[in-house]
């Protein structure tokens, strides 16, 4: 399968394009009806209000990496060791998510180049169980870091998560220190680690690898935070400030270096990689 067909298959509207319903897509922000093709050609950004829509892992990789990149195999992890069940079995929830998604879990790694600069890109996919961080996500994050270490190149991670994979309980929480072991190894090896915070990045992902980058880039309007807004509101019993936990708000408060439009992301990353080229031995 070449990269194009692989990517096409994962586009949110790609496989049903022949039905008239899918010719159009409604912008979730300004409600404008947009031609699906036009929307996708515009990187899933609304041409009218510039709302940055959520995109799948394959679409993101194709947007950032040069043609011909490799997708790393999904690491094998222990599946449902807690035998978790709420109203549904966790294994059934996984099956459903996999049926709707081209990948086995919510973190996909592409290894290739960005405008000619060697790079490994990890993408967390909100479309797979809300991008929630469990063992598969943590292990795939680590696999991406290992690939970057092995290739001696930068690691770029696009984060997106509603929170922890609760069905994996404490094992989900343990992915925070686990991923941090790898960000430290990148640092020790003198390799750049760049985080692209996309909508939404919350909870334990924010409180671990999303906030440990050498450079933090956020997509416009992305929700980024530690605690959920409802939890905060229940605690303080006041109205939240305008734009609270949005990318621009985090930029104002010093948590991200820059807010970059999706159209400029690839070029920005390429430029940053030039500055953050692994230090040559003297």
């Amino acid at each position, binding site marked *: 399968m070449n990269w194009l067909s692989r990517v096409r298959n994962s586009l949110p509207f790609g496989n049903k394009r022949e039905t008239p319903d899918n010719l159009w897509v409604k912008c979730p922000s300004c409600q404008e009806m947009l031609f699906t093709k036009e929307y996708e050609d515009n990187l899933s950004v609304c041409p009218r209000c510039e709302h940055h829509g959520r995109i799948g892992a394959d679409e993101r990789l194709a947007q950032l990496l040069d043609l011909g990149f490799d997708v790393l195999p999904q690491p094998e992890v222990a599946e449902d060791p807690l035998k978790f069940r*709420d*109203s549904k079995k966790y294994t059934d929830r996984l099956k459903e998510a996999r049926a709707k998604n081209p990948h086995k879990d919510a973190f996909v790694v592409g290894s290739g180049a960005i405008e000619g600069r060697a790079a490994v890109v990890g993408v967390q996919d909100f479309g797979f169980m809300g991008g929630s961080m469990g063992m598969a996500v943590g292990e795939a994050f680590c696999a991406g870091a290992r690939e970057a270490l092995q290739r001696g190149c930068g690691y770029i991670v696009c984060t997106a998560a509603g929170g922890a994979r609760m069905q994996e*309980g*404490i094992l*989900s929480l343990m992915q925070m220190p686990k991923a*941090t*072991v790898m960000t430290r190894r990148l640092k020790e090896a003198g390799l750049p680690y760049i985080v692209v915070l996309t909508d939404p990045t919350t909870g334990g992902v924010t409180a671990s690898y999303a906030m440990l980058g050498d450079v933090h880039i956020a997509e416009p309007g992305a929700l980024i935070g530690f605690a959920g807004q409802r939890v*905060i509101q229940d605690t*303080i019993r006041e109205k939240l400030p305008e734009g609270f936990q949005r990318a621009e708000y985090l930029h104002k408060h010093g948590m991200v270096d820059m807010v970059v439009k999706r159209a400029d992301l690839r070029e920005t990353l390429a430029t940053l990689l030039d500055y953050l080229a692994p230090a040559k031995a003297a």
Partner: protein
Amino acid sequence: MISYLEFEKPVAQLDKRIEELRAASGHDDVDISAEIARLEQKSADLLASTYASLSPWQKTQVARHPARPHFRDFVAHAFDEFIPLGGDRYYGEDEAIMGGFARLGERRVVLIGHEKGNDTESRLRHNFGMGKPEGYRKAIRLMELAGRFGLPVVTLVDTSGAFPGVEAEERGQAEAIARSTEACLALPVPMVATIVGEGGSGGAVALASAERVLMLEHAVYSVISPEGCASILWRTAEKAPDAAEAMKVTAQHLLKLGVIDRIVGEPAGGAQRDPVATAKTLGRAIGEELDALSGKDPAELRRQREERFLRIGTL
């Protein structure tokens, strides 16, 4: 008098009966004394059997018991000296996370831990043990200090979670937690963490990314509170007991999963019934752990710490 938990009602009834008999009896009333002794034995047996098979949700109640020993009790009864150090040098002093130099027998360490407080005034001052960014940044500062002077780090984890507030978010709650976890992993000195009450989510792991993680017998450790998990997955917080069960939050479960290394026993009927004995037992356990780690070189310590987290989830 200890406040009884809901599931301790049968014990409470027995204890009440014992009190009544005591009040009614004189010193030389042999019959009543024998009855009191019999009931006391019955109460103790019932308490022991209740605590031998607590459900995860019951353990959550025990872990949150207001009379459970907190940081200050451990300082008073497990350690021989404590010199508190304050402030993150950026913003302020957060008393939800305490820290300083401490002596455990002859061992000099840096001690860091959450403090929930024990009455209204102290609970507010300690923000119920919910740390803010400045608390985690103080912890980072103290860990770096420990590393530079070769002092082992001991942490006592007891938090429902990091504080969810507007200002905490603005000052980088997530970043502070991430950096604190990173600071644990970077330590060139031994680190022993103990979950002494509630180990709540990122706010706990930020002080618990150690090579040796201990847990008190009835403590709980989880990615989200049972109420939080229930309200998301079951859509009602009333299902918290089911969520606690499903998430495997107990020390006994977590030992099997390889997430913790050692369970430290509590007195009969839980730590809240004898904070002093609990502290002394924990102090001995931490001492043993530190002794086992002493003399290891920094690279070996880091490797051991890294491996325990890297292997979680792998087949």
